[in-house]
Each structure stands twice: as structure tokens, then as C-alpha cells.
């Protein structure tokens, strides 16, 4: 199980070596999420169009290790953008990955950029 988690490491924008094209902006529902596949990894991508922001994080919820976060609901906790896991409503900051309503491990987050109506996720490798 830790082998799953060990695949996901928070990537700062300075460490990005690969900008992977995840799809067109229109492939992602407004104020919703979608999951993309990159080198065997599952990455949740969120189109937080209400605040015109994009976020990406691991799709696996560290609580029960299921690949579900992309199906979660978006929102904010006192201004911090967050996603709520659909299984048990564990919430995570989309900025830092921190578990906002418990003491689970933080989730890995990845930078997102939009160019020419396409969505790119940044990975170190």
C-alpha cells in the first residue's frame, strides 16, 4: 500500500521537468474534477472555475487508499480551496495537500498550467 503512496510526491513549480498535456479545458467539468493517467499514476485535476483556478493532486485518498478524489466535491474552508473525498468526506487543501478535518497524511499536489485551451500538469519526471 505504501508503494502506492510512494509514487506521489508534491511537486513545486521549480521542480517541473515535464509538462504533461492532460486534455482540453473543455474535457473538465466546470467546478468539477476529472482523473488523468500519467506513467501509471492517477492524478485528479480540478477546474475550480468559480475562482478561475486549476489544481491537481493524487487521486488516491490516504484514508482508505481508494482512487476516488477526482470524484469529490470542491469548496473552500475559510478561503482555502479544498476537495472532499466522496467516501468519508475527508477534506484536503488543494494548495498544500493538508488534511483539513483530521490528521491524515497530506496528499501530493502538482502544478497546473493552461495554454491554448489545453491543460498541462507539471511532473518532475
Amino acid at each position: 500500500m505504501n508503494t502506492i503512496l510512494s509514487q506521489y510526491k508534491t511537486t513545486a513549480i521549480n521542480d517541473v521537468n515535464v509538462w504533461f498535456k492532460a486534455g482540453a479545458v473543455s474535457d473538465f467539468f466546470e467546478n468539477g474534477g476529472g482523473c488523468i493517467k500519467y506513467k501509471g499514476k492517477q492524478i485528479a485535476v480540478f477546474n475550480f472555475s468559480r475562482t478561475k483556478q486549476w489544481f491537481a493532486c493524487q487521486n488516491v485518498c490516504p484514508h482508505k487508499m481508494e482512487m476516488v478524489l477526482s470524484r469529490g466535491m470542491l469548496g473552500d474552508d475559510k478561503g482555502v480551496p479544498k476537495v472532499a473525498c466522496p467516501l468519508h468526506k475527508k477534506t484536503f487543501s488543494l494548495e498544500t495537500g493538508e488534511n483539513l478535518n483530521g490528521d491524515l497524511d497530506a496528499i501530493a499536489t502538482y502544478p497546473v498550467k493552461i495554454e491554448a485551451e489545453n491543460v498541462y500538469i507539471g511532473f518532475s519526471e
Partner: protein
Amino acid sequence: MKTIIVVGNGMVGYKFCEKFVVQSKSKDFKIVVFGEEPRPAYDRVHLSEFFENQDAKALEMAPAEWYKENNIDLIVDERVSEINRKSKVITTAKDREFSYDYLVLATGSSAFVPPIKGVEKEGVFVYRTIEDLEGMLSYAAKLKAKNPNARAAVLGGGLLGLEAGKAVMDMGLEPHIVEFASKLMPRQLDSRSSSVLQLKLESIGLNIHLNKATNQILGDDSIIGMEFGEDDILDVEMLVVSAGIRPRDELGKVSGLEMGVRGGIVVNNKMQTSDPTIFAIGEVALYNQMIYGLVAPGYDMADVAVNQIIGNTEKLMPAEIDMSTKLKLIGVDVASFGEPFMPASKGHSVIFENKTQHLYKRINVSLDGKSLLGGILVGDASDYNMLHQVFLNGMPIPEDAAQLILPATEGGAFGSALDLPDEAQICSCENVSKGQICGAIKDGSCEDLAGVISLTKASTSCGGCKPMVTDLVNETLKSLGKTVKNVICEHFDYSRQELYGIIKAKKLTSYNEVLDSCGSGHGCETCKPLVSSIFASLYNVTPNKEDVTQDTNDKFLANIQRNGTYSVVPRIAGGEITPEGLIVLGKIGAKYNLYTKITGGARIDFFGAQLNDLPAIWKELIDNGFESGHAYGKSLRTVKSCVGSTWCRYGLDESVSFAIELENRYKGLRSPHKIKGGVSGCIRECAEARGKDFGIIAVEGGWNLYVGGNGGATPRHAQLLAEQIDNETVIKYLDRYLMYYIQTAAPLMRTAAWLDKLEGGIEQLKKVVIDDSLSIVEDLEKEMQFLVDAYECEWKQAIENEETKKRFQHFVNSDDRDDNLVFVPLRDQKMPEHWKN
């Protein structure tokens, strides 16, 4: 270490223990409690509730563990039979001996059975203990099996007798009350109020016989009637004697304590008997030449005894004891306070009587018209708490005293509860003052009503003061500038009901519109589904319209399971399905390799469907005539039914046909929480309809409609809303009830909890739904009909729309499935592997 032996584990004996253990000096004492009954102390005041739930535990003052935790030895089922005062030792009926330093007699009282010829016959009961009730219940069941119209009488038209009358009525027997005096409740009510009460009770089915002296009980072994005069006979097959109480003072007699002429152990204002190491409290104690048969003075006596033993000797029983009472008898408010009957020489009475509404109010005012001396309320005792406080605290009354009882005037005659003096006693059972209640909020020890109640115990005994405690807490919070309401979350400063009204009035239709016009921030997992549910309840839009604000189950129109796969439940209305239908379901289950199970709601559930497969599975179901079962929604689930009169030899009506009609009417209806229904074809109740949010049972002459039932964590029997009504009326009432619930309930609140919270409970619901007291039923029916007409199968919508189908891809950038899923075999089917953390 000194030993206190408490003899008697009733309400007052328990209260002694409770008040003792919170004293800091209690560590220096060991308490041993003896109870004659087989269980720990229970709430005898609410004994008649035992008929509703037959749950003895629910009546317990405290569970057996409480005694252990507080280092009290509780010995039940063992009567104390002797006291040796010289050696300070008691002996029990099991011949065991225990020595004491202090002895507290809290043996209470027993039912008084007058020496009437034949009173020993089978079928004659007293109304005092849970065992008495159990005996009555099983006897009544036997009677009813032989004769569904069996009759039972209660001897005694006092307070307890009327309670017993309700018990008898609840058992389904025809109830008769037989009273020796010329009026009901002769001790508390004057003749006029008594006749108002009598009218009201007769209107709900009690038969009342006054001025009846019973000569003998008729019958060979079992009772078959009561004889009053030569030709004056009442045929009854059961009799409950409730003719008063007698103190259980045997121990006082055998040990030579000073006794009253007509019984009772004499005590002084320290609650001491003639032996200073022996105390007597509650209904065994004769204080001021009186036995006090109310719980509040009993609790005060317990408090005095505790303080005397611990050494706070200045705590004494007051010379004057307030005998004011307020109670609900068979749903009728009855209260009396101060001096209810007053001779004309002492003051004037102001009387308001309205027999058409079964209302009576009387207040007695001093000759100078300046103070309130007492009064009686029947039918509506909502002013009792304030009147009682005005009386107790000698507060000034309006020049025209009639304002105190006349139907409400602008602003009311009382003003705010905060105007009471701090020392005003609000909860007389637990002796809690206004100052303590408001102080708990002001000094920051509590933040809300629940906190205040748990700290002060106010309103935890009889509950009569609860409205006043609530007012005080809310008013105090308000005076401190704190808001009292339950808001949805950080994004909306409203309750669900308020937001419902706003969305409806402004005709808002998207989540962002709602957030922008009356919320703040960007929403969350609490307010998004809530707003979506309000949209659905108002407009019957399906989750397909705005899927990103739906809870995951609504978003994917299926129930998410442990490993992130989904389960699929097609509607099988009323549980009726053809063999061909079953074959289709079987084939679909096999094709997609789904774990298959029959649900508690009598339909079929397919588990383990991957996101990608959902549209294909639905398409096959729809092509074969099935539709969504809404098992994933906070919406109508199933209307369960027994087979009913089409096949059953006992059935009185077609329960399956009606269940299918109802399920199809309310399918897709979104609500604050899930809704389940049941229809049974006869009183055997095979559909378990009374455990549902609405339950319908066929009886002679129509259907009985029950509402607010629940299984789950807090099982609750549904309560009777209407009797013997036809199909059309059932639907009319259901439309109104469900719509009213949908509009007013808090989020995720089932109907049972909602009905509990509804001020006035089932009676208030009857007024709204049946009598249209709020003049809203026409709107409720219209709104429901709109929702019914707007129904669409959301699975069908989802598979017909290409854009919507994108939602069911696991990956945006690949057609692959989630390869993280692992299933293991289970009894010829499969299940997800166990979670590892």
C-alpha cells in the same frame, strides 16, 4: 467511613443518591441501596409511556452502571424486612444483615385497594409498577384475542386513574372511568373545570361514570362486571384500581418509630423520624400531617436529608410546600397552582370558560386585586409557567387581572421571562433558579440549551419547565448579542428552512446564483448537496442538471461502495416483479459480474459496478422496462408491502396495489433525508409499516395512516395521524405531510427526529395536515402534484446525453479502467478485498 443504607430505590431514593454523590464530603460515606423491584429506579411519572414503547430501560433514572461508577452498592430484588435500632442493623427478606450509621427510608407508597367484595378476582390490577403494566398487557392481549371489543374500567378518576385510563385505551380496550366523587380529579379541580375536562375526555373516547360507589366485583374466577346498585351494573372484563396511595410504612411500624394516625412515618423539617439516625423521605414521610404524592416535594426532601447527613444542618424543609402541578393527561393540558379553590372571603376569581374548545382558565386574585393567589387551567396550560412564577414571586399583576388569562393580546400580559427575579425557581423538580440558568450562559460555562440542561439538570425530570428554560437560554444569548440559530455552514448564515424560503421566493435555480445572492465564499460539501436537494424539492430537477454540486451518490446516480465501485438498484415498486423481470435482472448481473443481493427494502441490488459500466448497465435495465430506484438519493426509497387481500386469507385490503401506487407517486421525490414507506393489508403488519416514515395499515372501514417511524439507530414506531380513511384521503394527507416535512426539516433529519422536534408533536401535525391550521394545505398539495408531474428517470436522461456520459469515464485522457481495484471470492460471488488501514 460511615455507612448510609437507603431503603427503597424509587425516584426519590434515587434522587437522594444523585444529590449525595455530588457532595464533596460524600467520599467519607458508603451508600448501600436496597430495592424491592427487580430493576433499578425508574421514572414512575412517565409510566404510561411504557405502553408506547414497552422499553423499561428508557424509563430508568440511571443505568445499573451509574451506581457502580459512583461507588454505590445497589441491591435489587431484596426487600428490607426489619430494623434493629439498638444495634443499627437491618435484616432483609433473604435473611441477610447489614449495619448502618444512617438509615434513609424511601420506601414510597403502594396502590390503595379498597376492601370491595371480589376485588381478588382475576383481571383486577393496580397501576404502580412495570410488573403491574406487564401483567395488564398480557391480560389485555388475551381478552382481545377472544373479543376485540373487550371493555376495561379504571376505579378512580384522580390523576393516576386518568393516566391508567389512557393506558387502557392504548391497549385497545374500551375504557371506562369509575369515580366515587361527583367530579374528576376532585383534589385539583373545581366543578366547572372538571366538567370541561370530562367533556374533552369523552370526546376522545373515554366513558366516564361519576357518583358510583362500587358494591362488588362480579364474576366467578375472573371479573365480568362491577355492581354499583341493585340494577346498576357495568360489564367489564378488566379493572384497574387507582383509588389512591398508601405509604409503605411497615418498617416504621415494626421498629416503633412515631407514626401518623392514618399511616406514614412522622418526620420533622430535617426529614428525621423519631429516631435521629433514621430519615424518611418521599411518599412514606408524613410531614405537616401530610403525605405529599408529588415528585417535586419528594426531591426536596431528598435534598434536605442529604444536607442534614453531611452536616449542612441549616438546610430545612420549608413549612409551606408548593403543590402546583402541570401535566398532560391523555393529550389534555391540566394545571393547578397555589390555592386553586378559594373561598369568596379571601379574594375574587376570574374565570374564562369555553366548552366548545374544551378550555377553562381560572385565577384567584387577592381582594385588593394586587396579587395572584392561585388558579386552574384545563385544555391549554401554556400560560402555566408564567402564572406560577407570578404567584411564587408575588409579582405585580395587571390592573385588569383578566388579561392574564384572556386569549393572547398584543405583546402578551407577561413580558419577557428575563423580567423574573433571579431567585425565581424555574425547575421545581431539580430546584434550579432563573439565576442559575442565565448565569451558566453569562459566565461562559455553557453555550447553548443542551449545555445548560446538562449542567443544571433543569427540565430533566418532568420536563414541564422546558419551554421556559429554552426561553431563558435564548433570551440570555440574545441579550449577550449571540445568535441562537443553527446555520448551515460557514457559507450560509441561514437554517435549511430559511434558505428553502429564500430560494423559493427568489426563484433561484443554480448553486452559484444562490451562493452569490445569499451566501459567501465558494461552498463546501455541506451546503452544495443541501442546495441541490432544495432545488430538487422545489422544481424536481434531477441531479443531471448540475452534477458538480451533488453528493457523490447523486452525481453518479448509484451508491458508492467501500472500494469506490458502485451498486445499482432498479425500482421494483411494492416488491412486485414478474418471473421474466427476474430473469432479465439475473442475466444483467451475470453479464457484468456483479455481486447480487436482495435488499431490506425488498428489491435487488447489484454491487461492484465500475464507473465505466454504469451507463451500459442502466441502458440494459431501461430497455427491459426498468428504471432508477433512487437508492442513492435522499429521496423516496421503497414502499414495502405484504401480499394483501389479493392472496392473503387475512388481508383486509390490497396492500400491494396501494404500495405500488404510492411508490410510483413519490418516486424521485428529493427530501432532507431518505424516506421509506410501508403498506400492510391487516393489523398483523407483515410490511412493518410502523417502522417507516409513513406506514399504512388496512383496518375495517379504510386505512390507518401512521407517520414518523424509523428503524436505524434510534428505532421509533410511527404515530397515528388519521384513522379509517380511504385511498384518496391517504394520498391527500401524505402529500401534505411529506411536503411539510421537506420544507421545514433540518438537513439529514429523518421524519422521526423531525416530528420529535416539531413543537406540539403529532397533535400539531394533525392540526397542520388535517385541520389546515396554517392554511397551507392547498399549496402543499399543489407543490407535491407539480413534483409528481415533473418526474423523469434520471438514468434515462444520463444515457441519452453524450455530454453527461463523459462523467462516467474513470480517466479523462484514456478509456482504461481503474486498475487499482482488487476483488476476492465470496460464496460463489465476489467482494472487494479488505481495507488494509
